[in-house]
């Protein structure tokens, strides 16, 4: 944990769990997937939350009670960090480093970030692909064995990029799962695909039919969060994910 970011525990936190991350990003894929996971997995309850002066001065109200915008839900197998507000570029490093350090202390067996990768002409694509990148070669191999394509070359930008680099540095097993999605519009279909990818890799399964049936409702509700996320994505130069990389060998 860093001095600037405190993780306050409300309940006993399980050890050896898979730690998932769902943060606002392209298509809000991670947040939609994480919210769905919470609503479908009945025993996932809030076990901890982030307190930090780096967060915007806001409280998220649920049933009239205040909550931190970044909370961690858990049951005996899963820890899930979700943010209900976009994480600003300046705070990504301290927040992600604190979460990784906390997960490491809780002996999380794998850290997995659920997110999207934007594609052009998304509305013409029928079957969305899910890609993965990992913090080590063994994990990459195990993902490939489960028929998930590897994101071999390119850039990833945002909290998931920091998570992957930091975990590689600390020799912690970590994955980023990226479903093809819209850049600027909430994408429940992509969230369903990333959850299907998660199920193939980890066995953490949820029924995604509600996510698809309520697609229009989710898109309407997620509009304002998407708009604020767009502003942060622009600041962190998210479009670099479209760039053709130059590799010097």
């Amino acid at each position, binding site marked *: 944990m860093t001095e600037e970011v405190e993780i306050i525990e409300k309940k006993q936190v399980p050890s050896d769990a898979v730690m998932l991350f769902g943060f606002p990003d392209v298509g809000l894929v991670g947040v939609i997937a994480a919210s769905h996971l919470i609503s479908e997995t009945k025993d996932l309850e809030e076990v901890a939350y982030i307190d930090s002066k780096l967060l915007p001065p806001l409280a998220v109200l649920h049933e009239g009670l205040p909550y931190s915008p970044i909370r961690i839900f858990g049951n005996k197998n899963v820890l899930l960090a979700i943010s209900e507000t976009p994480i600003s570029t300046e705070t990504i490093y301290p927040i992600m480093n604190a979460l990784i350090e906390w997960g490491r202390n809780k002996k999380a067996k794998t850290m997995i970030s659920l997110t999207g990768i934007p594609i052009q002409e998304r*509305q*013409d694509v029928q079957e969305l692909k899910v890609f993965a990148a990992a913090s080590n070669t063994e994990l990459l191999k195990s993902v490939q064995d489960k028929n998930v394509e590897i994101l071999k070359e390119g850039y990833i930008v945002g909290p998931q990029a920091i998570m992957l680099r930091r975990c590689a540095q600390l020799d912690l097993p970590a994955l980023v799962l990226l479903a093809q999605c*819209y*850049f*600027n*519009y*909430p994408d429940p279909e992509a969230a369903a695909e990333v959850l299907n990818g998660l199920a193939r890799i980890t066995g953490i399964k949820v029924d995604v039919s509600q996510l698809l049936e309520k*697609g*229009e*409702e989710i*898109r*309407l*509700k997620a*509009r*304002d969060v*998407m*708009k604020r996320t*767009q*502003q942060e994505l622009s600041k962190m130069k998210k479009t670099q994910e479209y760039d053709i990389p130059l590799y010097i060998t």
Partner: protein
Amino acid sequence: MSTKRKRSFSDIVDEYFENIEEMMEQMQAMLTEKPSWNQKACTIEPLRDIVVTPTEVIVTVDLPYAEEKTVKIKPLEKNVLEIRAKMKKKVKFNELGITHRKGEFQEFHCQTRIPVPVHTKKMKILFKKGILKICLPRKEEFTIPIE
């Protein structure tokens, strides 16, 4: 002894313009910071995006619950489009999880400025999976011949 490095004239000019640009962005953000809905008009502002290619401008608009046949695109002044679409059902604030406001929405409405000159009369419109796509051919602009 001072360690302050002398800055070149171009550094100072660059910094000056960067500061102005930053201030403009902040002002723009302040001016555009408003609710994404209009309670009186019962309208919701949709998310939208603009891409400029060498030959056309592509505007996309996210219109969940919109009825395709009600989509209306009207060129207002020069390079401004007004987009409207009725929703298949009325949506109340409490259906969006907000219980402290009263009101309902039945239409999407927004105005979008096109950044380069286009032929609005030649626009092509597509509607798929609740996403409206408007393709506007760009007007040919003056080009400088290479000597």
